[in-house]
């Protein structure tokens, strides 16, 4: 089969236990989409509490909003909903799937590999006040742990309801039970849209209306000279935990004739071989999004570290040689 004509639509899966803040997060997304056409797939429209004046049209399984976003029902199943999205006259630019309270979001994420889509990341929202108690519940504890472990980005929500000591304990516990998940602390599930949908240049470039909601830092990097793939991967692996999103097109020494696409969501990242370069565009372009980190490191030291790491990608080019290593 040949490459699809359209680039695949990124899919973000949002999971977490009942009451953790999933729907709040989806609401924030819809209100701060800033022109990005997002399709959210949910079990329950009612819980979204969309303002009536925002609704442009409603036809049973789909609600169209004035800002270009749509909400689709999952009642008929994920396959049907995903295929229905591709059939729309104007397909969305992003898909967000909100899973139900005991679902394994990683299982839902597998639908993001259907033709026409790509998995962007799995975001799990956890209620800082209750998550540890839920995790030992005799009926749902296993499911809660499974969700936490499956997160690329773990939103530790409602941290205003716990003490500093409790927060530190919780962070240590999460590091033990979900070592592969990157933790971000939030209040009211207010994660900057850029951190969620940061892969889109559209979302990067537009200003949010909600300053508080959008407290994040952006790094941009570009270089017309090829960069060293091995060094780049080492750099990414060493990024501080406060970097939650990344996206880029890479011009690599190893395969200079082909563009490579870089994606990072939480602790998970990938470099995938893309199409041959149009010669004039042969430039590495990279964007990283960082959030204030409430854990051990100060925001200040992270900023300097990332600045330095990116700088080193430039200077490294003089001495880099093509590597034999196969790319991820």
């Amino acid at each position: 089969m040949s490459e699809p004509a359209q680039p695949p639509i990124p899919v973000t899966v949002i999971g977490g236990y009942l009451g953790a803040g999933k729907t709040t997060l989806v609401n924030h997304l819809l209100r701060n989409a800033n022109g990005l056409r997002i399709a959210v797939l949910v079990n329950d429209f009612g819980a979204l509490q969309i303002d009536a004046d925002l609704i442009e049209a409603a036809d049973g399984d789909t609600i169209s909003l004035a800002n270009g976003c749509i909400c689709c029902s999952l009642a008929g199943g994920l396959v049907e909903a995903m295929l229905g999205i591709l059939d729309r006259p104007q397909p969305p630019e992003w898909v967000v799937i909100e899973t139900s309270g005991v679902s394994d979001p990683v299982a839902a994420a597998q639908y993001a590999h259907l033709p026409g889509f790509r998995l962007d990341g799995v975001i799990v929202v956890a209620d800082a006040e209750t998550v540890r108690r839920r995790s030992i519940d005799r009926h749902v504890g296993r499911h809660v742990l499974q969700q936490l472990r499956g997160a690329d980005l773990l939103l530790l929500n409602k941290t205003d309801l716990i003490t500093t000591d409790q927060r530190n304990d919780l962070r240590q516990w999460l590091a033990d039970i979900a070592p592969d998940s990157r933790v971000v602390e939030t209040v009211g599930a207010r994660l900057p849209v850029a951190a969620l949908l940061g892969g889109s240049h559209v979302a990067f470039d537009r200003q949010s209306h909600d300053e508080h909601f959008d407290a994040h830092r952006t790094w941009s990097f570009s270089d017309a000279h090829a960069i060293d793939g091995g060094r780049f991967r080492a750099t990414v692996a060493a990024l501080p935990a406060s970097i939650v999103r990344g996206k880029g097109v890479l011009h690599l020494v190893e395969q200079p004739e082909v563009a490579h696409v870089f994606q990072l969501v939480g602790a998970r990242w990938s470099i995938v071989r893309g199409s041959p370069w149009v010669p004039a565009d042969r430039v590495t372009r990279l964007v990283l999004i960082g959030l204030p980190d409430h854990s051990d490191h100060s925001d200040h030291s992270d900023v300097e570290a990332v600045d330095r790491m990116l700088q080193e990608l430039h200077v490294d080019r003089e001495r880099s040689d093509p590597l034999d290593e196969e790319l991820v």
Partner: protein
Amino acid sequence: MTHPITVFVARKIVTMNPSNPEGTHVAVRDGKVLGVGTLQEVAGWGEYTLDATFADKVLVPGMIEVHAHAMEGLTGLFSYQGYFDRMAPDGRRLPGLRSIDAVLADLRRIDATMADPTEPLLTVGFDPIYFPGERLHKGHLDSVSSTRPIFLLHASSHLGTVNSAMLARHDITRDCLTIGVAKGDDGEPTGELQEMSAMALAQSALVPFMKAATGEECLWGFGRMARQVGVTCVTDLASQVLLNPAALGRWQRIVNDPEFPSRVALYSLPAMPGASADFGSVAAAIKRMQAEEATEKLRFPGVKFVLDGSIQGWTAAMNWPGYYTGSDHGQLLTIPEQLVDWLRPFHDAGINVHMHCNGEATIDVAIDAVEAVLKDVAWLDHRHTVQHSQLTNQAHFRRMKALGMCANLFANHIWYWGDQHYELTVGPERANRMEPCATAKRVGVPFSLHSDANVTPLGPLHLMWCAVNRTTPSGRVLGEQEKITAYDALWAVTQDAAYQMHLDGELGSIECGKYADFAVLDASPLDVAPMAIKDIAVWGTVVGGVAYEAAVTR
């Protein structure tokens, strides 16, 4: 105007009416029973026509299946590759395939009958649990054809196996990121696609099957299958009539057709277009259907929730110590406190709720939820039912009894997976008390028996045989202490089956005032040797006084 009376004479009529257990004649008017007894006892209703069609047959109440799925009607429409023999709605015998070589030989035979060499070949029913040690993979199927895409949809509907031509057609390669695309040591797909997210990648095979599952031929097949096995009322226990209004029209047109040989009870999934989780409006929609759309043949008794997976799939939610082999405890599909909120609008509106619960943990959750809603609204006669209820223990049953709940036990499991449960899934002790009919009877919980067709074949005589004999294919008796009598088993598939749908005032026995629904058998299951119950020949059924003769088995 006088309405004609027909008196059917039979060798014996087993009524399941405890106060009038047997007779030889049954008088029928307007599709309902006037009386059962001797000719003399029923002749007084007035001028009648004597129908001797069943003079050498035995009539029992039309049997009732409270857990089936309309997809059973597809049996025989797609090539069947299950382990056990099966019957199609037209009476065709579909032979079971007892080895992977037999499966491959069957595929070669089908391949040779298909003209277009690129048309996908899809079969159903294959179950790898019967072939331990040898996992079916693309290499097996490649030996059938390197050009025709092949898809074996397994019996569980959770797995499929495809060949290299199918992988190539849909660009399923080593680079595919879907977790359910199984990969071998060489990193290449093995051909096994796990769960719908992976199976949906091979759309060319699956889409025609999914379409057929909601088609008219499927619904007609569902009714004809009921006729073949003596069922006069069959449920579609995960109906999408609420979600899809066109489906409602289709059911009405077909079931209300006088040619359609069964009553149908539709238990909707609680899903509606759009506001799917607004269960208050779902409850209102069910009440509306009950009031405005129900007919003598088509009913909407309640709502169905699915709360966990299956035991043989290791996805039923288990309490300590979990499964016998394998470390997992399965998967709850609903949060316990959320289930209470979900049940409440239905319970409060007086709508009967049936909950799919296989594992012990799930049964706990279901009972807890019913207890919670009952504390607020004292509808004592709800008859909310634990469906499958396979690992229900005595403590569960005592709570269910106290709360007015029913159980529908998956008795066919004893035959189809009993050995696997003993050896693999739950181990000897718990396998011996699966489908605990005797415990349910002792505690006093009304229980029925079900096939979950198309998961296992529709057939209440087979269910009765399982509950009475508890025999597995290896010859093991699984739980001697949980055996019940043939009478109790027949009661379960007639009276108590009707009871758990609130239909026992109309169905479930042959007695004055109830519908004239009979299963027409060659012998009484109460008279034959217990091991012969499943082999009793079924002539067909009578539904509302109308005879529907089964297609001859061939």
